[in-house]
């Protein structure tokens, strides 16, 4: 099968394998000229395929590593829970209750099976279901991550486009310099700075705390806006840089010159033609950035004293409450995977018109 065959036949409804075999005889550079796409698969199906291809190994690997480490250490949760007065019989009973007297692999497989059905087990210390405490903490992280993403995409998008249009000018250089500085500042320092500005010097916003959105949307926004903005700075800088770079490149392409020569307005050329092509690489960066965003949310939680997943994980880590640790880890991985699928679906949707037709 030559390159042409691969590209030409794809779109005519021929049955294609869901996992395409890798093109084996492409000449060097062909990947750039002719993008090999498995047609006939909707973006969502492809996203789900990717979810399986990445999600299964990452979940297995991460949970196995953490579970394996528990087996390697001589930690004894039963003894910790029961305290000094426990008799060996008590500890044995507790171990049986936790299921810790079974072989390691049996423990792991049964935990994994339960996790797949949404049952994350029970905390050693509070005996509450892990699923409930995770479900309680998750909205906090979702809120600040969402605010951060919205702020970063709005601000990063606008400044990135402005900088690209001003390529080499004063604005462009200023934006580039600000982005370079922003990426050297640790995220929690931004948070502390915001607290000093908006909660200590000019006390207009609370320095910490949380109210669920269902209770009072106005107060929710007040509590969430500072952590969200603090989290958005690094991400926004990254996004600005990426949009600027790819838009500058796209604006030099022939089709942009062609559109300009045909007399289309600058606005139409930039937003209708160039941006659609330029936004793809930036979206890819967004996808790769999601794990860092979630990690950053944990730090923002600590700065602003929010009752989120990270605080749960930290408390659980202090006491060695392994079911809670595992539950938080699995939840955060699931969150990353969902975001990655969403990004991939968006990428497929955004594919330039010329490619979609084939």
């Amino acid at each position, binding site marked *: 099968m030559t390159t042409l065959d691969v590209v030409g036949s794809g779109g005519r409804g021929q049955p294609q394998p869901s996992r395409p075999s890798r093109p084996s005889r492409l000449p060097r550079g062909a990947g750039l000229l002719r993008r090999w796409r498995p047609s006939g698969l909707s973006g969502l199906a492809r996203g789900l395929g990717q979810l399986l291809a990445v999600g299964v190994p990452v979940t297995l690997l991460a949970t196995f590593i953490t579970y394996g480490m528990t087996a390697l250490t001589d930690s004894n949760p039963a003894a910790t829970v029961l305290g000094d007065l426990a008799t060996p019989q008590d500890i044995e009973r507790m171990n049986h209750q936790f299921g810790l007297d079974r072989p390691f692999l049996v423990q792991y497989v049964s935990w994994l099976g339960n996790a797949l059905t949404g049952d994350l087990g029970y905390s050693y210390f509070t005996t509450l279901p892990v699923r409930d405490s995770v479900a309680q903490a998750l909205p906090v992280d979702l809120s600040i991550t969402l605010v951060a993403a919205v702020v970063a995409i709005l601000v990063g998008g606008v400044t990135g486009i402005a900088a690209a249009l001003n390529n080499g000018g004063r604005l462009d250089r200023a934006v580039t310099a600000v982005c370079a500085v922003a990426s050297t500042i640790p995220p929690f320092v931004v948070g502390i700075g915001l607290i000093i500005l908006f909660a200590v010097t000019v006390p207009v916003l609370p320095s910490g705390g949380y109210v669920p959105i269902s209770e009072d949307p106005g107060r929710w926004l007040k509590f969430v806006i500072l952590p969200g903005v603090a989290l958005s700075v690094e991400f926004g800088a990254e996004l600005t840089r990426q949009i600027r770079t790819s838009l500058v490149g796209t604006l030099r392409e022939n089709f942009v010159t062609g559109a300009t020569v045909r007399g289309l307005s600058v606005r139409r050329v930039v937003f209708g033609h160039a941006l659609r092509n330029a936004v793809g*690489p930036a979206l890819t960066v967004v996808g790769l950035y999601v794990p860092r965003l979630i990690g950053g949310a944990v730090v923002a939680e600590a700065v602003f004293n929010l009752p989120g997943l*990270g605080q749960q994980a930290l408390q659980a880590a202090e006491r060695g409450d392994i079911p809670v640790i595992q539950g938080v880890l699995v939840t955060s*991985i699931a969150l990353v995977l969902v975001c990655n699928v969403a990004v991939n679906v968006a990428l497929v949707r955004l594919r330039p018109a010329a490619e979609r037709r084939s």
Partner: protein
Amino acid sequence: MSVLRRMIRLRSVRLALLVLAVVAVLAVAGGSLAPQDPIAQDPKAILQNPSGAHWLGTDYLGRDVLSRLMDATGRSVVGAAEAVGVGLLLGAPAGLASVVFGRAFEWLALRISDALLTLPYIIFAIAVTGIIGNGIHQAMLAIGLVLAPNYFRITRAATLGLASSQYVEIAELVGASRWWILRTHIWNKVLPTIVVTAASGAAASLLVVSSLSFLGIGTKPPAPTWGGMLSSDLNYLAQRPWAPLAPSLVIIITVAALNALADALRDTTGIVTGDPGRSGRARGSDSADTAETSSAATANSAVTAGSAVATSSAATATATGSVETTTAATSSIPRQKREVSDV
């Protein structure tokens, strides 16, 4: 070494080296150079402003901030170095091996690296320290493991580009062994790329280490760390709102110095790599722009291609930069494989 000489001529490099030299001295001897005992408490002098006795004031337990800052340097810097070291040791050899040793290994390495890239690393580090004990080495082992895919990808991309070069083909035709080719033709050409990546990786992992120590991961309370000092300042912002300034500036300046050094290395050696943490740095020069954009475009196409293999090269593509290498990474893996295994 002409590269070093050219670098020294840049003012940014001299400044960065000066900063890093100071940091290195403090890291080795910070505790003994400190004017006062970094953990000695003085209940009579808590939350004081800068004065002759305490140049940077005192914290909520009356401990001298300057001394704590100096003593903390070692812990913070060694942590970052350890994470980079673990990442390099795990990632770079795997990247070389993924090109050289058969398809099974390559498949496995790519899957593992994909998996590690999806881990939110702060939560993973918390989990690891929660299970095997809270210490700097445990935390850095976790961070190093999560950083490894970056080194893996960049090494792999560089190696893939070289493996298709003509002198390697000739060496294969003449009958050279894989090890000989690896040692003679590939290793010393991949090394500069790895060095550049390690330099910018050090900056990224310093930020992670300070975030973790801010959360209280990897440190035992009385011993100061840069992040830990910021976290204790947080409760006394009303009394001393400027207190976070000193530790923050120390972190920012060190990170900026490492970044400047990595940038200079990249510019003088002509190696285009992405930062492990941050891909695609915006720079003024036109050539850099085009290189980055084209690599990003390939990354885009790779993701659209949808297969897991292609997605995994997305990061490689943002990381590599040169069109040729990227294309090799995305499309001609099987061809490379055949050639290498035909030896």
